[in-house]
C-alpha cells in the first residue's frame, strides 16, 4: 500500500520546476493524450539547444519528467532529441509502471520538438 509514491527527484523537480514557462520565438512540440497535456519549447543556436522550457498539465511524474528533460537537453546537440528514449527518466524518477503510457507521450513530445526544430531550420 502507501509508501511514498514520489522519490526525492520527483519531489524536487515538481516543487521547484526551473524550466516551467515559455520561450520567445522557440520551436515547440505539443501533445495531449492519456489525460495529460505537454508542451516543450526550445531555442537553438547552431546545432545546440540553448534554452528549453516546458508547460505541463498532468500528474507529478509528468511535470517532474518535463523538468528533467529540459535540464538534460539545455546545451546539448539538437540531434540528441531524436534519440530520446524514456528509460532513464522512468528509472531516475521511479515512475510507476502504470504511468508508462504518460512517459511515452512525453517521448513523442520530445521527438516532435526535434522535428519542429529541423522544420524551422
Amino acid at each position, binding site marked *: *500500500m*502507501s509508501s511514498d509514491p*514520489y522519490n526525492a527527484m520527483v*519531489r524536487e523537480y*515538481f516543487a521547484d*520546476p526551473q524550466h*516551467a514557462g515559455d520561450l520567445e520565438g522557440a520551436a515547440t512540440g*505539443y501533445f*495531449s493524450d492519456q489525460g*495529460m*497535456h*505537454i*508542451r516543450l519549447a526550445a531555442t537553438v543556436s547552431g546545432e545546440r539547444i540553448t534554452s528549453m522550457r516546458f*508547460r*505541463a*498539465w*498532468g*500528474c*507529478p511524474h509528468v*511535470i517532474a519528467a518535463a523538468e528533467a528533460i529540459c535540464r538534460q537537453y539545455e546545451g546539448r546537440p539538437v540531434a540528441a532529441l531524436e534519440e530520446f528514449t524514456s528509460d532513464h527518466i522512468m528509472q531516475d524518477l521511479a515512475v510507476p509502471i*502504470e504511468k508508462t503510457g504518460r512517459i511515452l507521450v512525453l517521448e513523442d513530445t520530445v521527438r516532435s520538438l526535434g522535428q519542429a526544430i529541423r522544420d524551422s531550420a
Partner: protein
Amino acid sequence: MKQPDNVYLDYAATTPADERVIARMQEVQTTSFANPSSSHAAGRQSMEVVTNAARQLGALLNIDPDALLWTSGATESNNLAILGAARHRAHRGKHLVTMRTEHKAVVDVFKALEKQGFAVTWLSPGDDGRVLPEVLADALRDDTQLVSIMHINNETGIVQDIGSLGRVCREHDVLFHVDAAQSVGKVHLDLQALPVDLLSLTGHKFYGPKGIGALYVSASPGTHIEPLLWGGGQQRRLRPGTLPVELIAGLGAAAEISAALMDDEYSRLTALRASLWEGICAIDGVHANGDLNNGYPGILNVGVDNVEGESLLLALEPLCVATGSACNSQSQEPSYVLRAMGRSDLQAQSAIRFSFGRQTAPADVEFAARTYRSAVERLRSIAPEAVA
C-alpha cells in the same frame, strides 16, 4: 512564517484517539485483561467493563445496550448487516436497494450479492446529493428485503434524511440498514425515534480506537441476520471471537466523550468550514462538492476546473488531505461518488476533501486556504494556456 510540518485535515479518514480513550484503554489493559467469557472472577470483571462500555454507547444512540454487536469496524458491520440480512431473508425475496454514493464497504457488498443472484437497485442521488423518500418508495418491490443508505457521506458530508427514508421502509415492511460510520459521535442519532433496523459504526471515526466497531441490531422480531463468522458462543453466536475488552472500553469512552462535546464541536466545525470556503471560493472555477447549508460541517470537498488532481494533492503538502475517500486514495480513478452526483471525470479528479476535527484550529484552516490558493495558482501557471 514558519511552515508547519504537517497539517492534518483528514478526520473523515480517521481521527486520533482521544487522550481519555487512550488512558481508559491502558487502565483496562492492565487491570481487566481477562477473557470476558471466562466465568472466574477476573473474567467477570472484564465482562463488567464490556457491559459498562455497551451502556455508554447505548446512551449515545438511545438504545438498549443489548442491541449492540461488537465488530472490528464499520466494514465488518456493513458486511454483517447486509450479507446477514440478505441471506437470512433470501427465501422471502432477493431484491435489495442501495445508493450509488455509498462507501465501498457497502457498494462492494451489494456487488458481491449481485454475483450471488440477488437483484440490486442502485439509486442515484439528486443534484443535492440526496435521495428523496419518493424515489426510494418507487424503487421498492414486493420482493424487496433490505434497503441500505448511509447517513453522512464520507466524501462530501452530504446528509441523507434517514428518518423519512426509514419510514418508507417501515411502511413497506423492508429492513433498513444505515451506514453511520461518519455520523455516530458527531451528530445526534436517536435510534428510539428513528426507524432504523440495523446501523453500522466504527470507533476510529469519532476519536475511539481503531479495530473496533459495532452493529446495532434492533430487537424488533423481524430483524434477524445470519452470522458471517462461526465459532464460540460469544455475542449470541452472531459474532464469535474473544471480546477485545480494552477496545470496547475505548469505544465506550469515546461515545461518552462525544456525547458531551457534540454540540459545541458541531458549531466550531461549522465556523471552520465557512472560513475555509471563504478563503478559496474566489478562485476561478472552484466549486464545493456537497451541501454548504445542510451538509455535515466537518467535511468540505472542493473541486476546481482545469487542475490535475494528483498534482494538486502533492502541491498541497504539508496538508494531509484526501482525494476521494482514503480507502481508494491509492487509485487514480475519479471518485465514483462525485461521478454519481453528476460531476465530469475531470471535475471529479480534481476534488480534494478537507475534513476537520477536534484538533483543527482556525489557523490550520487559514493555512489550508492559503496553501490551496497558491497550489492552484502554481499548477495553472505551469500548464499550457489551452488547459489552464
